[in-house]
């Protein structure tokens, strides 16, 4: 049995930032499915928001203005005290990561460069070309090396050990050896990323299956606001690889088959830089009304007018992606794009410090939900969320551990959980069913994108829920062909799918019950926001029969809900 005082599950930005904070004070180790530099944080492109006021057009930007934009962007579902905390901490957190080596692009004065982004009143998105996430990720991994933070890689968390109201540790599957391993701890920080792979047309990495999140859910940790799923306006047609919002921040146009910059119809002032929910709906409306290019499911992202030099300097990464994946050089031709699933605003229900219902269990980053993004996250706020709340959860977890006796309690619970996990996995391996779990996965993804997607209504979502429940039943009848130990993808993907189906169900149920339109949750049968009934967070608690839904209040400080116009 391994033992560390703090375990961080996930080596992406939130996990690394948490470990960097706690490791100098308390013995901390990182457990990750992939090496940290492979994490999905590295796919973030456009940048990270902080009111540094470095751009000449942002001289009077402040954290309060950043907070207001975030709250308005969230369609007033974000907790305003948490938003204020995040936007206030943004500057110090960005300077810190710059001091550790993050190679931000520079202004003429040699300061961190900032570009305009959707839903923001000022150019406040700090960027490093269009590979900001990757550079930040490498920087934090480098920092973790400097601090000698132990790393257990190629391990997937398959169970959470809780006893009474406290966390005791986790059970992991060592992907290299195929053995189950027990990791005991005083505190556990879940930083395992989002669950975007539940959806078809996702921009997310293939490992973004939310496996640790669903594991926690099954063990009684509630999920919050799961029905709020972000669709990024511009993902490459065909592969749904991300084309950064920075492309529009730098001045890119969205154009339909008539050659119109159609955003003038939907957000006359903000145009292409309206928030993501609005731009995605606009693109989808154009496509649904037959104004996709050649009547197909895409419109054009046109960057040609930016010129070769600017594209090479500011957007080299997406240029390479467009050339490699659709054979289009944005310098010469417009890029075919469509909205794609991009981010889960919801997640493990936490308070402002990342704490959950269980003592010693924290969550940070996309797997968690504070909530700072509410019903719609602004571009550039997710990288910010990871560093601000990663740091905070590391701090709070360290204080918690230092303030308690470390008695290594819970060996009995650890062993019991190991036996249960072993039985569950052995059961899966010995099942001689007729179903191929990759088919079930494909059907789940198709169901979710088609029926709990950009536009929703009751009949569609009821179908989706029935489909997901039918898929869960079929899952009981799968075969895992690979009975081997080492790097058994067949087994790992079956385990992931089991959790994804639970989370898909929580998304569908939460969405059905929310009879209003707010942010990314857009219902054709309830077109208006309903602050009387639904200015509330959805809380989904696991039960074998399906999620039990309750609601909790939204913290409003000084920004009263008003109509959202851009």
């Amino acid at each position, binding site marked *: 049995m391994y033992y560390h005082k703090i375990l961080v599950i996930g080596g992406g930005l939130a996990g690394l930032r948490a470990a960097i904070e706690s490791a100098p004070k308390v013995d901390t180790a990182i457990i990750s499915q*992939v*090496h940290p*530099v*492979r*994490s*999905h944080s*590295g*796919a973030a492109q456009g940048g990270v928001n902080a009111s*540094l006021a470095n751009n000449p057009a942002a001289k009077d930007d402040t954290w309060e203005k950043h907070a207001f934009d975030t709250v308005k962007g969230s369609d007033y579902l974000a907790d305003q005290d948490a938003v204020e905390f995040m936007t206030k901490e943004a500057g110090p957190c*960005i*300077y810190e990561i*710059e*001091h*550790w*080596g993050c*190679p*931000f*692009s*520079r202004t*003429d004065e*040699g*300061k*961190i460069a900032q570009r305009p982004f959707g839903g923001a009143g000022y150019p406040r998105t700090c960027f*490093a070309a269009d*590979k900001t996430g*990757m*550079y930040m990720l*490498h*920087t934090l991994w*480098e*920092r973790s*090396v*400097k601090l000698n933070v132990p790393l257990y890689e*190629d391990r997937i968390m398959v169970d959470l050990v809780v006893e009474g109201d406290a966390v005791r540790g986790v059970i992991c599957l060592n992907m*290299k050896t195929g053995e189950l391993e027990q990791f005991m701890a005083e505190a556990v920080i879940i930083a395992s990323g989002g669950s975007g792979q539940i959806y078809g047309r996702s921009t997310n*990495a*293939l*490992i973004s299956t939310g496996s640790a999140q669903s594991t926690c859910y099954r063990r009684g940790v509630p999920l919050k606001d799961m029905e709020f799923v972000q669709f990024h306006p511009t993902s490459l047609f*065909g*592969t749904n*690889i*991300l084309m950064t919002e920075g492309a529009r921040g730098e001045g890119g146009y969205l154009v339909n088959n008539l050659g119109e910059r159609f955003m003038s119809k939907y957000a006359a002032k903000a145009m292409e830089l309206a928030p993501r929910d609005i731009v995605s709906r606009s693109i989808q409306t154009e496509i649904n009304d037959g104004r996709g290019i050649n009547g197909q499911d895409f419109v054009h992202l046109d960057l040609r007018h930016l010129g070769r030099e600017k594209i090479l300097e500011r957007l080299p*990464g997406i240029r*390479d*992606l467009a050339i*490699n994946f*659709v054979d289009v050089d944005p310098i010469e031709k417009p890029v075919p794009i469509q909205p794609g699933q991009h981010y889960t605003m919801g997640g493990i229900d936490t308070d402002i410090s990342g704490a959950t219902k269980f003592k010693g269990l924290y969550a940070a980053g996309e797997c968690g939900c504070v909530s700072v993004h509410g019903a719609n996250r602004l571009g550039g706020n997710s990288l910010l969320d990871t560093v601000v709340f990663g740091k905070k959860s590391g701090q709070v977890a360290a204080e918690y551990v230092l303030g308690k006796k470390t008695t290594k309690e819970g060996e009995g619970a650890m062993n019991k959980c190991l036996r249960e996990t072993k039985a569950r996995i052995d059961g899966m391996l010995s099942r001689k069913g007729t179903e*191929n779990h*990759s*088919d079930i996965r494909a059907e789940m993804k198709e169901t979710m994108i088609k029926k709990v997607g950009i536009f929703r209504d009751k009949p569609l979502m009821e179908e989706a829920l029935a489909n997901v429940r039918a898929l869960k039943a079929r899952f009981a009848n799968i075969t*895992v*062909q*690979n009975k*081997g*130990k*080492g*790097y*058994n*993808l*067949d087994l790992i993907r079956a385990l992931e799918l089991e959790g994804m189906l639970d989370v898909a169900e929580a998304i569908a149920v939460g969405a059905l019950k929310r009879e209003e339109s707010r942010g990314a949750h857009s219902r054709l049968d309830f077109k208006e926001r309903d602050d009387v009934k639904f200015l509330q967070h959805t809380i989904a608690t696991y039960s074998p029969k399906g999620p039990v839904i309750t609601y909790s209040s939204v913290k409003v400080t000084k920004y009263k809900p008003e109509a959202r116009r851009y």
Partner: protein
Amino acid sequence: MAEGDLTLKVQRFDPTADKLPYWQSFTVKPRPGMTVLDALFEVLNHQDGTLSFRFCCRAGVCGSCAMVIGGKVRLACETQVAQFVGKGDLMLSPLPHQPVVKDLAVDYTHFFDRLKKVKPYLVGKEPYPEKEYIQSTKERQPINDPIDCILCGSCTSSCTMAWTNSDYLGPAALLKSYRFLADTRDSVPDERLDIIEGESGVWRCHTQFNCVEVCPKKLNPTEAIQKMKIKAFKRKLFGRRGTKK
């Protein structure tokens, strides 16, 4: 096999069960835009659940899926299969000279151990400024390329010097060292030069350019290594102060 189909010849090896690696053929139906990674998933999902390979972002940024594809080291996720159709079997094998976990998945432990030897982190000048370090666009220019390294391991796996000497830092680690040596915010150039001019450092590079040839991000570790040789050499000639240009 129907016309237009592609046969993948995959090197299989389970070190816990097999004495030697062997080749196994799978036939896939290429569709428009299909990458080698897509083809591997097609096999995993519908033909052979025992196949193992690494993957993550599927967009060429995470560095998980470097392997030998048709005789060349490439990233499976950004290599289109269409170019191989009608040209015989497509051979797929793991990165050379890395321990195999299973089939196409290699163990990167030694690769990252090499990297950790070069102080792969910025040691910023202290005290830290209240805000950011001031660094002009011109001052950042020398690191523009080396920061794009995704640590996929293609270069070090293709370097014959790294094959024959497991202590040799190799192109990826040396490029990382250069990235910090060239960063105006760093404060320990002498410590870095001490590391890279040692027995396992830059002088082991024989300028074969294998690293340059295989880099999926079109980076140039050989050039960085030669620049560091010059820095180290100047320091020997002019003393430690000579390194501060």
